């Protein structure tokens, strides 16, 4: 077994037993990136020199007998996290040469626990997209089939783990941006409850929906990485000061006493037949593990995409006002006055999907339309959130597909923004409700593409979905298959 094939837990055990050094581990992943990334384009920036220096420091800590939980563990970060001294582009031309003067809290916590940064991974520009085709640095390719998208917006995070370029990565999820690429790439991805992980230093897209989460090979690693980043942060006043449980301790191999709800709105016509078959098989597996299966209803599901594309774009239009060519980022060379500095810098720096969302959001917030669009969407958001609270009166976990289809082909949906938006129909409601959910492998399509199972939990009940996911994973072999790349 190559070092780069190991899970985070296996790397931890191997480092602790001195079977290999942190430097050897870092080198194995850097070599793997060099060998495979020309075909995948998962990385925007590879930190080869600093990774080796950090690994050497980790080896000193290991030799001193004083390792932290992640000492010597190589990781990749979505290029949306500010990383001190390392370029942070958010996959946009407007931040092509931006080097953050500080660390995002989630990254600072990983660093403080000894993690080694392999590099910054590709994404849809400003996290706006479902296919990773909106990156100014080119699309990421799916390691299972390089003619297909990896999903988005955390496409690089999912692809790099699937291709074993990194044992784990962090991503962000605003409307499914961790779960949908995890599903398309056959890895585990978790979107925590809003407020569970600090957003400080994460470049903002839609502030009431954005959340940071782990992408890993298996469920145990997911629990370990969530443990490392979860918890209150005084620098993010929307992070919630509630105790963080020991996630790994809640993992157990059965589902006795767990009530799992199947929302009938998630098993609609139009759901791909292979996806339906894999998810239904997963239901059978959960039942055999002792879970009680209950039908539930999330009646406003069909309105979620419309609701999301008003709220998210409105927040985005406000958040992205800061890119004005004055304090940081691209500045046009042709402006004659201040207004032209703003408007030309922005036109030159932003890609077409980002402009589309800024325009839609500006319109939804503009005088005369605010009540009809933005306020209406906020009221519908209340109904969607209430759907989940009602369902969680009856069940502990909600189970369904992550995406209506497996990964689609590069270029297949770029001509029609609405078709692209609809690929997030089962993930968006969770962000609007603010609760937690994850994707884990549950099968493959007839053409060999991975299919993800979505588990949705009550607010701050990440332990419930991790426990369910772990039991399912122990009873199946899907997570052991690897993309050949």
């Amino acid at each position, binding site marked *: 077994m190559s070092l780069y094939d190991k899970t985070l837990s296996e790397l931890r055990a191997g480092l602790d037993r001195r079977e290999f050094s942190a430097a050897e581990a870092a080198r194995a992943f850097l070599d793997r990136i060099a060998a495979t990334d020309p075909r995948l384009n998962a990385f925007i920036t590879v930190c080869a020199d600093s990774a080796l220096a950090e690994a050497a420091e980790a080896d000193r800590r290991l030799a001193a007998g004083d390792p932290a939980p992640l000492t010597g563990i190589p990781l990749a970060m979505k290029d949306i996290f500010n990383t001190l001294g390392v370029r942070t582009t958010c996959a946009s031309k407007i931040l092509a040469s931006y080097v953050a003067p500080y660390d995002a809290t989630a990254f600072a916590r990983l660093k403080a626990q000894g993690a080694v940064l392999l590099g910054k991974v590709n994404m849809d520009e400003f996290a706006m997209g479902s296919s990773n085709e909106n990156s100014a640095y080119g699309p990421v390719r799916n390691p299972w089939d390089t003619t297909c998208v990896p999903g988005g917006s955390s496409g690089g995070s999912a692809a790099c783990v699937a291709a074993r370029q990194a044992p784990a990565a962090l991503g962000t999820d605003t409307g499914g941006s961790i779960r949908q690429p995890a599903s398309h790439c056959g890895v585990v991805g978790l979107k925590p409850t809003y407020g569970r992980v600090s957003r400080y230093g994460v470049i903002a897209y839609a502030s009431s929906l954005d959340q940071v989460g782990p992408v890993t090979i298996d469920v145990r690693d997911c629990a370990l990485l969530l443990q490392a980043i979860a918890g209150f942060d005084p620098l993010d006043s929307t992070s919630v000061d509630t105790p963080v449980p020991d996630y790994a301790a809640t993992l157990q191999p059965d589902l006795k006493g767990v009530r799992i709800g199947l929302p009938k709105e998630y098993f609609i016509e139009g759901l791909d037949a292979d996806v339906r078959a894999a998810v239904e098989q997963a239901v059978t597996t959960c039942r055999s593990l002792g879970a009680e299966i209950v039908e539930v209803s999330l009646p406003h599901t069909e309105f979620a995409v419309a609701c999301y594309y008003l709220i998210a774009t409105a927040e985005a239009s406000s958040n992205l006002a800061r890119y004005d060519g004055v304090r940081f980022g691209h500045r046009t060379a042709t402006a004659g006055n201040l207004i032209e500095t703003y408007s030309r810098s922005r036109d030159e720096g932003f890609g077409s999907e980002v*402009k589309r969302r800024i325009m839609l959001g500006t319109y939804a917030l503009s005088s005369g339309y605010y009540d009809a669009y933005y306020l209406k969407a906020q009221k519908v958001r209340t109904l969607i959130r209430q759907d989940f609270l009602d369902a969680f009166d009856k069940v502990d976990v909600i189970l369904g597909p992550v995406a209506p289809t497996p990964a689609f082909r590069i270029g297949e949906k770029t001509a029609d923004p609405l078709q692209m938006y609809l690929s997030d129909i089962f993930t968006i409601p969770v962000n*609007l409700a603010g609760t937690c959910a994850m994707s884990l492998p549950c099968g493959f399509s007839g053409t060999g593409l991975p299919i993800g199972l979505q588990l949705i939990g009550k607010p701050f009940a990440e332990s419930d979905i991790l426990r369910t996911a772990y039991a399912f994973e122990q009873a199946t072999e899907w997570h052991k298959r690897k993309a050949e790349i």
Partner: protein
Amino acid sequence: MKISRSEVEHVARLARLALNDEELDALTGDMDAILAYVDQLNRLKTDGIVPTAHAVPMANAFRQDEVRPSFTPEQAQTNAPAPDPGGFRVPRVIE
């Protein structure tokens, strides 16, 4: 039509985006289709429903008002396209 080309031009001015004709044409079609799609929200009666701005039931977050370390002017300027001692240079605002 949900939105006209001249309305799209107005929104572009509000958003400070110097879009070219081709972009304005494409966006008029895209926004029209998206606004027609989001119209489905009007099928829902929402009278008396409290809007949700934020999914976590949380009141104001307070902290002590105290001086803490922050960026120096030099740190704040490290990414500036046109830094000036103590500030950021921009084109003349007042004629």
